[in-house]
């Protein structure tokens, strides 16, 4: 701001300057007048003093006459007369000449009042009178020498100059002895004329001077009055001016205050109403005193006094976010910062904050911070921070993203399960759910000792293996892989020297994963079945499939529960029941495993539709294991089969036959290489199931029984199809649980035949 750039203070500066100038003028006038006042006083004194001079002239002339008459020396008296006459003449001339006088210090003063007409007139009269006086005085003053006859005795010593004192000696002198010379007589005559004239004139002159003195005094009084009026006028004017200034500024102040109040109210209204949280941050990162009310709601606090930005965020964001935020804000304070560029890297653009919930836990919100650099006089003074609660927007966006990701995942899943018969899938899901719950139940059984933990492993293994087997049979690769990973964890636990609950933590994590994944499959199946249902309904009605329905399904809006799917098969017209599903499952399994093993196989199923409900699950698990085993271990590759004159495709038969009161018979037979007893013994020894000595003593039947031992497998490596030796163990256990028996017949290079007897059940008999 320049010195003359007074801004809003211009008015008051001008007004005060004007006032001071006015006061200076008043004081100058006052001073001038006061100066004249002292001149007048000097003038009055001067005139009063000069009023005595005519008397002095007269007295001197009288005294001179007296001395002359007495024959005394007159020189001194004459000289006094001269001086008195000259002084009065000088004074009168000065007064007549523009009123000039000489004060006691010798300074020449001018009495303006002497130029007034009345004074001039009086002075003229006085001058005229004095001129007459002077005419009479002139011969006397020009006298020199002695007025006496020279023969006369020397006069007596001169008395004092005082005329009064001189009168006595004059009177005492002997008159008869005075003898005047002719000049003396002329002098005496002149003196007589003078005293006669002076007798009246000196009084008149004194009166004139006294009158002039009075005039000067009157003039002085007048000036004093003028001065008083000027002072009073000045004071009144000053007061009026002050009053005007005061009123002017009071009005201006009021206006400014009103304007300021209005602006403040507008600002407050804005800050109270605006939805954004607004505040300023200073260089110390302290929040400013003005902020929007929305900030209270956004940050769930009322007190922002002396709060710094880091304290504002500290309790609601993770430490890492806080550090990033503080670094970013520090960056914004740099002078050479490209604000637009820096804004693009704002880490607080969408920050997740957590507020303590009084009921416990956190309330999570998303806040959007925007920073604007506020410049004042060319330098950065504040940061304007705008905060928005964008929770809804972020949640919607995230939901949309999750929904898209889920839709993508579901599409992938859908493509995987599309080829699976819904009934088979439903059946699998139900069974898998039971299996996994069983796994959870096994886990839940209290265990403290290592043996208790170890006992859990086999039970869990069987359940997971069953899930894996069926998933593989249905071609549900994602489920199969998860179950396989679960098995690997179990295998890892089996090999450990000691076991505790901590070792089981990976299992619950994998179990959780399997539960979640199956839930997704179930959801997809639900939609799939619903779509099938919709299509079938449309077909029945002879119309086209409603595109809307398909869209709804794809969007996941029409989520028919899986229970609905279970009652739907009758409408599908593609399957006859769960066991029909099993037949297809086995065919798919055989084909898929054969394909993965580069083999060919023809599967023939018979009687599976007659499996009683009580055995449905077990028969499914058993046949899945046996069919897979047959393809992996029994059926040879086409080339090998050709060498022994077998058809390229292996023959595999699954037959389920009711035997009345004897129960049921399940036969799984293949025309493959049969059981290789020596290989079985070798593997059993390798895996530590038996010792070489025990192997040597085993008969064929006992050797074949080895394949039912847990952990036995002749597969060279572990794959999802074979390798851990759990499958036959599962078959043995399932059969044993049902109270049945397993028979095994095999001829090397010709066939293998598993014959399973299952007891009659109440429901089976009834059927």
């Amino acid at each position, binding site marked *: 701001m320049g010195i003359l750039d007074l801004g809003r203070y211009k008015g008051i500066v001008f007004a005060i300057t004007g006032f001071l100038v006015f006061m200076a003028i008043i004081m100058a006038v006052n001073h001038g007048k006061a100066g004249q006042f002292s001149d007048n006083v000097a003038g009055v004194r001067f005139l009063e003093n000069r009023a005595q001079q005519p008397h002095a002239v007269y007295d001197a002339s009288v005294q001179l006459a007296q001395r002359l008459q007495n024959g005394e020396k007159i020189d001194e008296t004459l000289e006094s007369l001269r001086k008195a006459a000259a002084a009065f003449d000088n004074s009168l001339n000065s007064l007549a000449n523009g009123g000039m006088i000489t004060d006691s210090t010798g300074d020449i003063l001018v009495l303006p009042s002497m130029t007034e007409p009345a004074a001039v007139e009086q002075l003229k009269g006085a001058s005229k009178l004095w001129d007459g006086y002077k005419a009479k005085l002139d011969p006397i003053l020009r006298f020199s020498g002695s007025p006496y006859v020279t023969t006369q005795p020397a006069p007596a010593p001169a008395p004092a100059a005082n005329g009064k004192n001189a009168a006595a000696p004059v009177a005492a002198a002997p008159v008869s002895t005075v003898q005047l010379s002719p000049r003396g007589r002329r002098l005496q005559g002149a003196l007589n004329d003078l005293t006669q004239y002076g007798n009246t004139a000196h009084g008149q002159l004194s009166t004139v001077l006294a009158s002039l003195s009075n005039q000067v005094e009157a003039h002085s009084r007048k000036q004093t009055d003028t001065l008083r009026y000027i002072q009073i006028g000045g004071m009144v004017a000053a007061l009026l001016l002050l009053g005007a200034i005061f009123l002017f500024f009071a009005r201006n102040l009021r206006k400014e205050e009103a304007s300021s109040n209005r602006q403040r109210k507008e600002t407050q209204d804005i800050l109270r109403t605006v939805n954004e949280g607004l505040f300023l941050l200073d260089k110390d990162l302290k929040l400013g005193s003005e902020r929007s009310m929305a900030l209270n709601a956004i940050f769930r606090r009322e007190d922002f006094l002396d709060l710094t930005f880091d304290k504002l965020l500290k309790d*609601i*964001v*993770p*430490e*890492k*976010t806080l*550090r990033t935020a503080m670094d970013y804000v520090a960056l914004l304070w740099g002078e050479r910062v490209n604000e637009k560029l820096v804004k693009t890297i704002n880490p607080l653009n969408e920050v*997740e904050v*957590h507020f*303590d*919930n009084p*009921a*416990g*836990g*956190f309330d*999570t919100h998303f806040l959007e911070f925007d920073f604007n650099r506020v410049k004042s006089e060319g330098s950065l003074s504040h940061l304007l921070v705008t905060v928005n609660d964008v929770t809804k927007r972020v949640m919607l966006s995230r939901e949309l993203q999750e929904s898209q990701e889920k839709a993508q995942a579901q599409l992938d899943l859908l493509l995987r399960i599309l080829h699976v018969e819904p009934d088979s899938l439903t059946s699998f899901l139900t069974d898998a759910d039971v299996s996994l719950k069983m796994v*959870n139940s096994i*886990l*839940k*059984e*209290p*265990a*403290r000792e290592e043996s*208790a*933990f170890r006992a*859990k492993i086999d039970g869990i293994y069987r359940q997971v293996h069953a899930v894996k087997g069926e998933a593989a049979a249905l071609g549900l690769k994602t489920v199969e892989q998860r179950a396989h990973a679960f098995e690997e964890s179990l295998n890892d636990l089996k090999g450990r020297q000691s076991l*505790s*609950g*901590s070792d*089981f*933590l*990976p*299992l*619950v*994590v994998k*179990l*959780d*994963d399997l*539960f*979640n994944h199956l839930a997704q499959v179930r959801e997809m199946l639900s939609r799939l079945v619903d779509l099938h249902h919709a299509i079938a309904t449309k077909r029945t009605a002879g119309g086209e499939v409603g595109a809307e329905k398909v869209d709804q399904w794809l969007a996941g809006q029409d989520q028919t529960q899986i229970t609905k799917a279970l009652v739907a098969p009758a409408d599908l017209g593609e399957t006859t029941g769960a066991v029909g599903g099993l037949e297809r499952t086995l065919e798919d399994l055989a084909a898929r495993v054969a394909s993965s093993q580069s083999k060919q196989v023809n599967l023939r199923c018979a009687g599976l539709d007659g499996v009683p409900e009580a055995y449905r699950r077990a028969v499914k698990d058993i046949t899945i294991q046996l069919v897979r085993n047959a393809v992996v271990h029994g059926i040879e590759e086409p080339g090998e089969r050709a060498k022994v004159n077998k058809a390229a495709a292996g023959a595999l038969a699954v037959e389920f036959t009711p035997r009345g009161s004897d129960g049921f018979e399940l036969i799984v037979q293949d025309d493959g290489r049969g059981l290789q007893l020596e290989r079985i013994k070798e593997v059993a020894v390798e895996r530590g199931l038996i010792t070489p000595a025990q192997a040597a003593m085993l008969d064929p039947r006992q050797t074949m029984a080895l394949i039912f031992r847990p952990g036995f497998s002749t597969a060279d490596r572990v794959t999802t199809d074979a390798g851990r030796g759990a499958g036959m163990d599962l078959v043995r256990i399932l059969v044993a649980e049902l109270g049945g028996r397993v028979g095994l017949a095999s001829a090397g290079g010709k066939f293998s035949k598993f014959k399973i007897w299952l007891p009659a059940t109440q429901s089976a008999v009834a059927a």
Partner: protein
Amino acid sequence: MMTKVELETFVEGTTHYFATAANQPASVGSPYIVQEGKPTIQEFTGLISIAGKRRGIVYFTASRPMLTVMLMRMGETELTQENMCDLVGEVANTISGNARRDFGKDFMISVPTVVAGEPEKIVTPDNIRSFVIPINWRSHSAQLVVCLE
């Protein structure tokens, strides 16, 4: 998806407390999942809430007899409800400290709260299964429950 490491962190926090404060290590029981309904809640529960990368609650719940023995082992003569609350609160605090150390800066972990009885006060997130890890100490069994999204 919950990871093994995350579960281990909570379990270690709990067992660490027993090993150091209760002067006798605890063993971890067989963990399991609770899918529906509420997991076990015993008489005293110390709870922490977690937000950030994961959200939900983790709590340690124990019975009065177990806490009584623990207090006695720790040389505490006043077997009051207040001390038992403090005890489960301390366990929760240790779990919280362990979690802070292991999970880094991406997590927000609340200060522990203690609930004596009143299982309705413990609110688990909807539709989220809980992992229950039994913590066996002497003849007693407490539970560590992890319920995170």
